[in-house]
């Protein structure tokens, strides 16, 4: 890898760790001007940064503000680089789609937002249905968008029962076998996922990313 590019990727990576959105905008534009491969910049600069933040968060060396700022920095950078990707058919690649939302009766936004942000910062196309989402809406949107994953969040033990209705709805419409369902939120657990017939339990935003990446066959290349 040429020296300038290597230095550039390192700068991009650090920008994410610092959560500097303005700098990310500047670097993304510079990348386009210099003709760097936008995927490489996303992969080895931005996403590598947010993954490092994820590690730091898990070990308790950084917290929600740093994680949110870092993820937003990545999104800002990606949004600029994506314009080039969409224009240039030779480098077009399809990103796995994910639908996410908080279940009916529950208006908790923060955990779901963090998972959505981290997923999109890691290169997925995320459709966020918001909070208090009815089971029928989850099913309808799955039918419409055909995502690879459906992520359902619940923070209340009372409302998490509504997740069962989503799974039933998917079964009835014949969509169940076509997507993977992941549940998350404070009261959810591996046992809960199993009990309602979901595929995965995502313990936190980082594990949600890990699971979806693994399942999409999207493993990080070395170097």
């Amino acid at each position: 890898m040429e020296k300038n590019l290597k230095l550039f990727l390192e700068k991009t990576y650090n920008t994410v760790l610092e959560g500097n959105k303005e700098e990310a905008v500047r670097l993304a534009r510079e990348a386009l001007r210099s003709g760097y491969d936008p995927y490489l910049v996303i992969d080895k600069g931005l996403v590598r940064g947010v993954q490092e933040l994820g590690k730091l968060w898990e070990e308790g060396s950084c917290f929600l503000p740093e994680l949110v700022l870092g993820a937003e920095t990545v999104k800002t950078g990606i949004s600029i680089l994506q314009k080039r990707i969409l224009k240039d058919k030779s480098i077009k690649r399809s990103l796995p789609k994910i639908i996410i939302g908080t279940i009916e009766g529950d208006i908790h936004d923060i955990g779901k937002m963090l998972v959505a942000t981290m997923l999109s910062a890691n290169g997925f196309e995320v459709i966020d249905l918001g909070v208090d989402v009815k089971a029928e809406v989850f099913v309808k949107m799955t039918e419409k968008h055909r995502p690879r994953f459906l992520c359902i969040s619940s923070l209340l033990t009372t409302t998490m029962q509504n997740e069962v209705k989503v799974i039933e709805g998917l079964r009835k419409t014949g969509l169940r076998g076509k997507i993977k369902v992941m549940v998350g939120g404070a009261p959810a657990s591996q046992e809960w996922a199993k009990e309602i017939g979901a595929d995965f339990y995502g313990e936190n935003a980082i594990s949600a990313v890990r699971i979806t990446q693994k399942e999409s066959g999207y493993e990080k290349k070395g170097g």
Partner: protein
Amino acid sequence: MKRKVDKKSVLELGKERVVLFDGAMGTMLFSYGLQFNEPPELWNLLQPEIVYKIHHRYAWTGADVIQTNTFGANGVKLKKSGYEKKMEEINLAAISIAREACPVKKYVAGNIGPTGEFLEPVGKAELKVLKKAFKEQARILVSGGVDLISIETMYDLREAIAAVEGVREVASVPLFVCMTFEKKPKGYFTIMGDEVKSSFRKLKEAGADVVGANCTLGSQEMIDLVSIMRKCTDLPIIAQPNAGKPKIIKGKTVYLQTPTLFAEDITEMVKSGANYVGGCCGTTPGFTKVINEKMNKLRIKKGPGV
């Protein structure tokens, strides 16, 4: 209804012996049929007899301090469910229910929880808006005659300080503040990354009389946190852990921890320096009863560290 009773301040009592706070209100209301999306505080108006019953059971199983059902009764939070116009009514009703439900020698704490909004960079809430909401709620709580104010479950130090400052602008009553800390490999932190020592220092500067932790942690982890908290401040300490992590078994929420185990852990917290103890999510009057029995043996003449 206000009754003039001659009793020592809860802070004075805390110097003489360990003081027992009540247990959960929210999870109790759910067990009585509170529906999701229904603000628990609304039951002060709609189902006062159930709120009364819960307070009554806590008071008669041995709690010294009863906390009003006003955790989410600040203007910012009530606005989300469309009940902000009923803010004063809800808070005043909560105080009369608590007063009616417990003997006069017990203490009624005006309970204040977070607004549920996030400050920058996670959210877009403005600190001055939050502070105004806390000030307004505190003004009503004090006008209703609470003996103390207990601020709980604060996950952002900035919001906690806004609450303390808001209260202090209108009230000189004893002020208890609980942050909610998570256990991380490097220690205990709020989700925003606030650590114990600097949080407690700043809360004290802002005017808190007692500092501590509630929610998130089960009683086992809380023992460890209490010994850390004891080293971090010269103020009295309060600890209100959850009854473990909830499990969903056959569609029902179950807290697997037993009152006996919980009470054993509480006594460990007292040995580690907690001056005020109680329970958070999942605890019931059954827990209070067992803690009270154990504490009757343990209650000490002087609270440690004060």
